[in-house]
């Protein structure tokens, strides 16, 4: 990595260097946003999580202990914010359902990211298949496959044992292969 490490930038920020915080934002905002897009139902929520994540970083910079684990720490904040939103959304749906007003699942959090419209069908299919994974598999796979994190970093971000993380990722990849194979009209085998 060129320039100061994440830990060094955060230390500089803690000493009052606002440019160091900008550098951290520039370096990691796509990771956070992309992860939030995979976890949440729409662009608006993902944008909110992006903002809230970095606000949380600014507010709790002092709580971070510099051990070269900035990215897992950052992604754990983003993941917790995503889970909070998903939890609130589920509660809202439950209340609406209890009132007899059944929300349209597909309309939640719209609109989707505009880039998706520019992607070819194959790419959109992979994206949608990832989005359709169970939550735990989705978050583990997103961190591992898209954010380039190691099993150890994913384990730290999700606060889950390494064995659990590996199992989640392997299960997710297998499920994706099944789903995508199935979409292409191939024979679907038992899981």
């Amino acid at each position: 990595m060129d320039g100061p490490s994440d830990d060094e930038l955060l230390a500089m920020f803690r000493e009052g260097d606002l440019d160091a915080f900008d550098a951290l934002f520039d370096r990691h905002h796509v990771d956070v946003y992309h992860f939030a897009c995979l976890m949440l139902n729409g662009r608006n929520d993902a944008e909110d999580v992006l903002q809230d994540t970095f606000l949380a970083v600014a507010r709790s910079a002092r709580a971070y202990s510099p051990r070269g684990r900035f990215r897992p720490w950052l992604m754990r904040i983003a993941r917790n914010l995503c889970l909070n939103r998903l939890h609130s959304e589920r509660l809202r749906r439950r209340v609406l359902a209890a009132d007899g007003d059944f929300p349209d699942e597909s309309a939640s959090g719209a609109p989707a990211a505009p880039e998706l419209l520019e992607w070819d069908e194959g790419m959109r299919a992979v994206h949608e298949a990832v989005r359709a994974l169970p939550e735990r598999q989705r978050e583990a796979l997103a961190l591992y496959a898209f954010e380039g994190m190691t099993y150890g970093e994913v384990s730290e971000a999700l606060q889950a044992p390494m064995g659990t993380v590996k199992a989640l990722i392997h299960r997710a990849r297998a499920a994706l292969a099944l789903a995508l194979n199935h979409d292409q009209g191939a024979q679907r085998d038992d899981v």
Partner: protein
Amino acid sequence: MTCERKHEELAAFAAGDLDPESAAALKGHLEGCAVCARRLAAIRETDARLKLLPRLRPSAGAMLRTRRALNEELRARPAPEVMTLEEAAAFLRVEPDDLREAASQLPAFEIGGRIRIRREKLIDWIARRERVYARSTAESDVAHILSGIKWEVDDGTNGDKGRARAVLAVPCRAPQGARQHPVGAQREQGRDGRHGIRGSSGPDLSGA
């Protein structure tokens, strides 16, 4: 045609995460199982497609909003850990000159002739000043009450009120090892007009 082998095991094999013994066993199985061989190929293809998937990026509008919110937050964040005298003055909402006059009492250190103050120490110092101020004003109130009574203590100066309050005051000393700045001891005055603590000749602020 089906196979009982779990897909998850094939995914672990594709990622190189199986232990050598399990990997060798699965390799042997793959040679005779077309179903698993096809599943493994599908997993590998999916892994490759995952790697090619572009990353979503926030819109220009979202970036603008986020940067604006962050800027507001950062501007409002606490003062830096180590402050100049001017930053400390801004932090305390006083004029730098006022703080300069109290420099001998500040929990400061000096590098290259420039004063630096740690925020935490400054906050502790404020807390101590608050305690001393509260005690001092309470004593002032007592002295005020006592002023209506005939003063009977003979301290060698006819027991006048000023000296009586001086007896109540805590002796002052500068922080140990601190550099003494040529600062005049000036009496501070509270908003209510009552006298507060003294400057360098006031109560001890270095303890606690």
